[in-house]
């Protein structure tokens, strides 16, 4: 269970959000500039709230009143960025292995094989990120985040940088990820169709405030 109740001032922009989510995939929906990325950066620990609380499965990650701030590297929260952010000096295999090494987890070839098969990236292992297509890069980024064994997976418009054809290519992997990986996710998007397919719960952000909360039927354009 994820509990977020935060206030953050970023220049002229003020973000104020409070919600509790138990869904398998929480869809964070809103136009660009609504504060979606700032919000998940706070959940990831990359950005500190001015005031408020963030808790995951009962563990406090941020509590400004108690001066608690668990740094990003100790949160065990995976993050798939819109721009993949693979390490350019490492090949795919080393990118995938990075989280395991940093968390000093034991090697788990069975798990690695599952993830590699799920994402269909077995043929890319020896390539550098510079030699991957946009869609391949994004699939490796999913794998890299998954293999760090996170308790929660944040996905920030993971299809945002891809054209329509690539999106259609990736979406099935995401649905399999949701159904097989058993890791709760927060999925950020401004694409209604994407969220309708993936999300089990929706948090709608508008101008830094929560405008609606509930099932996928709160998404705009849903027949009543």
């Amino acid at each position, binding site marked *: 269970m994820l509990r977020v109740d935060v206030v953050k001032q970023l220049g002229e922009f003020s973000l104020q959000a409070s919600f509790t989510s138990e869904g398998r995939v929480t869809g964070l929906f809103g136009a660009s500039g609504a504060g979606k990325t700032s919000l998940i950066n706070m959940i990831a620990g990359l950005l500190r709230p001015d005031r408020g609380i963030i808790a995951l499965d009962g563990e406090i990650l941020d509590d400004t009143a108690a001066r608690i701030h668990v740094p990003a590297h100790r949160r065990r929260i995976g993050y798939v960025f819109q721009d993949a952010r693979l*390490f350019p000096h490492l090949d795919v295999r080393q990118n995938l292995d990075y989280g395991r090494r*940093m968390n000093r987890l034991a090697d788990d070839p069975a798990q690695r094989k599952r993830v590699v098969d799920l994402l269909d990236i077995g043929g890319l292992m020896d390539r550098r990120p510079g030699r991957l297509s946009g869609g391949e890069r994004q699939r490796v980024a999913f794998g890299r985040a998954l293999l*760090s064994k996170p308790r929660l997976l944040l996905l920030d418009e993971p299809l945002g940088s891809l054209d329509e054809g690539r999106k259609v290519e990736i979406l099935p992997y995401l649905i399999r990820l949701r159904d097989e990986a058993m890791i709760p996710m927060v999925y950020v998007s401004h694409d209604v169709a994407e969220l309708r397919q993936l999300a089990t719960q929706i948090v709608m952000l508008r101008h830094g405030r929560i405008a609606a909360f509930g099932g996928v039927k709160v998404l705009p354009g849903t027949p009543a």
Partner: protein
Amino acid sequence: MFDISPTEWTAIQLSLRVATVATLVATPLGIAVAWLLARRDFWGKAVLDALIYLPLVLPPVVTGYLLLLTFGRRGLVGAWLADHLGIVFAFRWTGAALACGVMSFPLLVRPIRLSIEAVDRRLEQAAETLGAAPFRVFLTVTLPLALPGVLAGMVLGFAKAIGEFGATITFVSNIPGETQTISSAIYSLIQTPDGDSAALRLVIVSIVIALAALIASEWFARRATRRLHGN
């Protein structure tokens, strides 16, 4: 003409030793300082920045004299080091290395700082979310991506250290076999009758070393760009 005499060899070898030690000792410090300047904001940052560049703009003789006042046998730091650790800089080759290290430090730090600044901070954030503590982020992401810049800085610093003259001769004098580097040997030779051809040989040697260093540095810089673009 190209018969290099034992005295000249001694000067060349001493120069290489002094410059190598100066570069190897200065590099870790240079990386730390470059990282601070590139990635942190702190009180007194502008002062630290200016202080590092000072040897580049001060007359070398001033830097040498300041080193003598500080690290000389009666200097504040020099006396303490000699009494407690037995480390003596004055009129020793180690002093030449110190002078060269200080004089080449700005040239060493600059490319390292630029290459650290060029490392995408978003990659460092990605590493954090994968469980890497700050120092491991530095070791596994920042430093490898900045490595060509580090090597370029080392090469430039080394070239500067090889050619350093003013601060070295002021601080540790010009003692053959102990502190007489290529530069001070050339200086002595051109003041000696019949020293011209020997001086010319050493001049050619220093031109070759400097050119090789510049070419190497350029090569590392090109590699840096390629590496950052991920091939």
